[in-house]
Structures are given as C-alpha cells and as structure tokens.
C-alpha cells in the first residue's frame, strides 16, 4: 500500500508537466483556430514552383 505514497506524487508531477505543455500550446496559438488546420494534411504539397512541368 505504501507504493501509493510514491505513485501519487509522481502522477501529480506528470499532471504539472501536462498543464505546462498545455499552457505552452495555448500561448503558441495552437488553440486559436480549431477549424482550419484540420484540412491541411488532406491535400498534397504544391509543386516546387507554380509552373514546374510534370515529369
């Protein structure tokens, strides 16, 4: 049973790390727009130059 005396503080430290990471994300505009970025991975990258010829 004594193991919880160690495990609970460890979980609290992890919680603190999680909250720190979340604050970092909020401050770096990760939550400002939840709508737009979801589409970005759906499309292929554009060709290197707009007028690049197909191989």
């Amino acid at each position, binding site marked *: 049973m004594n193991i919880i005396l160690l495990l609970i503080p460890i979980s609290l430290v992890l919680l603190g790390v999680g909250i720190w990471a979340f604050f970092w994300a909020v401050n770096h505009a990760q939550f400002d727009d939840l709508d737009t970025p979801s*589409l970005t991975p759906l*499309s292929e990258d554009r060709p290197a130059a707009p007028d690049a010829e197909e191989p």
Partner: protein
Amino acid sequence: MNAQACFHCGEANPDSAPILARVQGRQHAVCCPGCKAAAEWIETLGLADYYRLRSGPAQRHDGVADHAAWDRPALARLHVRSTSADRAQVIVLVDGLRCSACAWLIERALRGIDGVLDVGVNALARRVSLEFDPRRIKLSSLLAALSRLGYVPHPLTAGMIDSQRQRESRAALKRLVVAGLGTMQAMMMAVALYAGVFDGIDPAVREFFRWIGFLVATPVVLYSAQPFFRGAVREWRARRLSMDTPVALAVALIYLASMINVFVGGHEIYFDSVSMFVLFLLLGRHLAMRARHRAGDVVDALARLQPVLAERREAAGYTTIAVHELEAGDIVRVGSGAAIPADGELLGPRCRIDESLLSGESTPIAREPGQALIAGSLVIDGPIEVIVRHIGADTVLAGIVRMVTRAASERPALARLADARAARFVVRVLAATLITTLAWAWFDPGRALPAALAVLVVSCPCAFALAVPSALTRAVAVLAQRGVLVVDADALEALARADRFIFDKTGTLTEPNFERARVEVIRGSLEQALGIAAALEQSNSHPLGLALRRAGASAPLKTATALRHVQGAGVEGDIEGIRYRLGRADFSLHAPGADTAGDGDALVLADPDGVIARFPPSEQLRPAAATLIRSLGDAGIKCEILSGDRAARVAHIAGLLAIDEFTAAASPVDKLARLAVLRAQGHVVAMVGDGINDAPVLAAADVAIAIGEGSAMAHAASGILLASSRLESLLEARHVAAEMLVRLKQNLNWALAYNLSAVPLAALGFVPPWLAAIGMSASSIVVILNSLRIGRHATAWPDAPRPVSEAVA
C-alpha cells in the same frame, strides 16, 4: 454541382455560349469571365485542390479593385505593425471567406508570394493575419492578391493584432483546463476518503490523501476562480452584490474551512465540491464568452461602413488622406456614391443623401448647404464639399458601434434578475449559517462547526448561480448553430413571450423580382435589353441586381468592361464599345432631378442616345413566408404587415398569406405609432424587418428581428439576426426561446426546492458534511443537464423547402 452551375461560384450559368475554364485538365463551365480568371489563376498556382476540399461555393468574382491608397504612410501606420525593419504584420478581415477550404486557398496562394513571411487564416473569425517584408512587397500588392482570388479584403487597425478577444479566450481556456484537471484529481482523492469512511483507512494514508486534495484544489481556487474573486471585489467596491459575490464567498469559505481542517486535523474537507463548483461555473462562462465574441464580429462589420480615405481641400487642390488625419474644420470633397468620411456640415452645393444607415429611410433626403451630414451616409449626386465637425470616436456611427459593443457585453436582464435573487439568497444563507453556529455553540459547541459547514455547503448557491446562465448560453449556442445570431440575450425572453408579430413587407416577406412581361422596351428587343442589363449587374450583390441577373439568365450573354458602380444610383459599363448606364432614371439619363415617366422606382437602361428599356420591379413571396405565417397562426399569434408600400400591393401580399391586418403606405412615424398602440394594449410585439429600412421601428419593438444579408447584418437596432435569410429559422428561434424559458423556470424551482428542504435538515445537524457536498454537486448537475436538454429535439418543419434564394444569400 451540376453543369448548369458555375464551377467557381455555384451560380447559374448562362444557357448560350458557355464560358469554359480549364482546371486540372478538364473543362468546367463558369458563369462569367471574372470567375474564369479566378479559377484559372487558382489552377496556375497549383491550388486546384481547393475545389475538392471546399464545402461551399466561392464568392462571385467582382473584378480587382485598386488598393494603392493603402500604401500611404498615414494609413499604414494605423493598420500595419512593424516588428523590425524587415518584418511587418497586418490583420485583414476577409469578406467571402466561407469555409476551411477558402482558408487553405488563401494560405497557399499568399505563401507563394515573394516577401510574405507568414500567413495565418482563421475561417471562423474571417481573419487573415499576414507577416511580410515591407521592403520586398507592399501592402497593396497583398490586398490585390486577395482580390484576385475573389475575396474582398478589409485591413483592420493594428490594435486588433493584440486583440483583447484573443487574450481573453486564451486565458479562459487555460482556467477551464486547470479547473477540469484539478477537479478530477480532487474527486479521486475524495472518493478514496469516502470509501475510507465506510471500509476503514489507515490514519496516515488518510492524512496523506487530505493533503493531496488540498494541493490539487489550490490552483483551481487561486488560479481558475480568479474571475469570480475579481468580479466580487469590483462589485463590492461599487457597493453592489452580484452573482460573483455569493460564488466568491462560497468558494473562499469552503476552501478556507477545508484548509483549516487539513491543518488542525479536524472534520470533513470539501476540496472536490469546491473544484467542481468552479469548473461548472467556468464552463458556463466559457460558452457565454464564445457567443459574445461571435457578436463582436458584427461590430467589426459596422466599423467597416466608415470610409478610410478622404479628399481634403488644400491650397494646391485636393489631396487624398486617411480619415484619421482629418481635423475638425477641414473641408473635404465627397464624390457621387461615396460615403461621407466624418460628421460635418454641407458647404455646397445642395444634394441628396442616403442616410439609410442611421435613419432607416432608404429614400434619399435633400440637404441644403449648412445642414448636418453624418459619417457613413452616401452622397447620391455629388461631388459636394463638407466642413468636418466631428471625427473618429465622436461621430454618430462610432456611437452606434459603441452601443452594439455594450449591448453585446452587458448581462441580460434575465441574468441580472437571477443575480439579484441569488444575492438575496446568499444573505439569507449567511444569516442561517450564523444562527446555526450560535445555536449549536449554546447547546453543543463540538457540533457547531460541522453543522455550520453543512449549511454553507448544502445551500451553496451554485444551483442558483448556474440556473440562468446555463439555460441562456445553451439556447444561444443552439441557435447560433442554426444560423440565428442572438445579439442581445434579452431578446430571447421577449421572443418567447411575443404574442404579436409585425412584418415589414419588402425584403422580409417578399423579395424583388423582374417579370419579363412587364419590361417596357423602347428600342431593340427584350432579350437584348435583358442581356445588357444582366451583364451590367454581373458583379452586383444587391437584391435588385440579383433579381435582374435571374431575369436575364436566358438572354445571350454579353461581357461588360470598365464597370463603375455608383452607390445608391446605378451602374455604368462598356459593352461592345457602347457606354451603357443602368439605374435610377436621373442617373441613367444624366439628368439630375428629372424623374421621368412617373414610375419612379423602375430601373432605366440607357445608352448615350437615350432610354432603351425600363424594368419596373415586382416582387415574389419568399419561399418560407406562407409556412411561417401559418405556423405562427397555429400557435395563436397574430401577424400583421406594416409597410410603406402602396395599399394595393400590400393587400395582395396580405391576401396571399391570409393576414387580415395590414397597414399600407405607412411612414416610419405611422409605424412607430402603430407599435405604441399595440404595446399600450399590453401586447409583446416582435418586429421582423430587413434591418435597413426599419431601423427606428425595429428599435421600438419588444424584440427586433432582422433578416440579414450583407451589411444589413451589422445593424444595431436588432436583437436577433437571421443570418441565413431563411425565414423558417424564425420558428426554430421562437421554439428554442420558449423552451429556454421553461427550462430556466424548472432550474430556479429546483434550486429553491432543494435548498428549502436541505438547509433546515443541515441546520438541525442531520446532514453530515460529506452528504451535504454530494447533495450540492448533484443539485448543480441536475441544473446543467436540464439546460442541456434545450434544443435536443430537432424541430421538424412541415413542407419548408430550402429556398432557392439561399444560394445567393
């Protein structure tokens, strides 16, 4: 999307001689050369995926406007923020940014431009944030690029970059997450402790859990609950009690009592209850904040009505300067169709002004030299000269913007009422706690503290605190999803209680239409005239212009170049080398003041040789109007039409809709008088209008509902906006508002019943504090769940077809 609809914008294609745009190796039919250019430019940028990703058609392409004026240093100073010599930032509000695919398109297209360092697009707020190197690219080129994509850019002032809104929402999100995580941890510890009460627990472990509970609840109280403490202190300084007062008091007392118990090893602790309380309240506030921010976008739209440039008279002639450079006493020139940049006095010559923005009267008003003019109103026949009297924040327009801002941030009357109730309630609870403590101190000092805490916890005002805001925010959120924007939460209550609906006719129940049979052709053929008119109106989004394009859809397509719009008058452009004009008679015929041929509201098409055709507008019912009136009638609500139009037309429409009561040829004064009579009779009156022609009348009704299209959305007078211009959403709004009132009353009754039964038991010492904590949490959960039921049953409307007009709204 079918072959008849434009590949780019989704509007109907002309039947004859389709215009084709080549995108991704295939030919697609488009409706106009502008759309062809936009589609092909998107293709050459390698961004044709846009057409696959988007969820709605693009805005019709209007041609590229001139943005050179934005490079003026005075304007740039106001709108562009330089972070270093090679880095500048600007925020642009983009009209026509409709879905995530638009955002993707803008981001990709702008990133490809040399000199652009970073592009951030927010589709929800319709904002593009641009970082660029001012030495390599000018702001005007960036704006031109946006225009070429088919969007209309409006740079916002630099103050918006560090927007208070963004900081507020970030802070709220952090508080909410800390409260959520803290609550989970505190409840975990509490469950262990509750289990320990029944199954036995090692005293050392118990002590450990209590300290951990204290540790995790502390950030929730000291960080997440800060807004409540701040609010309570602010209210206290103003010698008032608000909802924040009992909340802050309860949070502080419960937290302090539990903390003392942890230190002295006494009795029960309530860290789980206090965290959960804070979490639920923050959740309600978060939803309310998001609704408020959405309303804030409306204010931005209003601020846009004021022009940014002005022509000032100087010794050497006229110079174009930024509006904020103007000073009282300056003389500015305003051309035909332009907006007046600042409040002032007409110097001359006499002219006509469209003040629909403020007075609601769309008929131009004649102004004599010396009379006052208001910023934002349009000059019909210029150019005129104006002496500037008031600028910037002192103008009437700025006053309206402030009014809307305040209305959006003010707490609604319902919430204030609940505040007052809760404040009285908390005073009584504190009295009860005091009496309990004193009584037990007399009989049995050892039980005084547990009993007092039980009273405080069990009667915790959270059920009261949550009853009204949870129902209100849920209703506002549900309506926003369905295209109904609630600007003023009081309007919801009035809408639910309204027993009279008054409709404006034109633009509300009906929309303009041109019947081919009634077109009066003076020269040439009907098809030819319609073709020319449709070509001239190709980029006009005004309802009349759209109607004319519909009427001319089957005519042979022509292309107009050098289009020039004169707001409030008409449009001119070259077709096959001939200069045509279409609009009001005096504009088309170059004869100011000459209202020819009696029928003043007909659009006249003319070339330099004279009149070609007259288009008298008629009107057709909006698709959902009949359904709406019938459903309202079924609900026992009387409908009425108040219109400034001619009696015969109003009677015809009233007959079609089976409305018995109507008033025709009513001036705004008549309309106001009619509203006053109805309200004096005790009716709660809802007024539905298009938001432009009825502003003062809308403001006088108990609840004003505006059907929004474009700039009409921005109007300050309305409490509720039907953003989708679907009339049937009014029924849904009424339904949700009524349900909100029911749930709200249930919530308040439940909170009252719970407290009345629990407090006496707790005071008598029958409720151990842990049971009190469970009871308190349960009572607030009941309130939240009850509020969440609003709008769960999607309202089904019989035979409500999706109107055709929606595509253009």
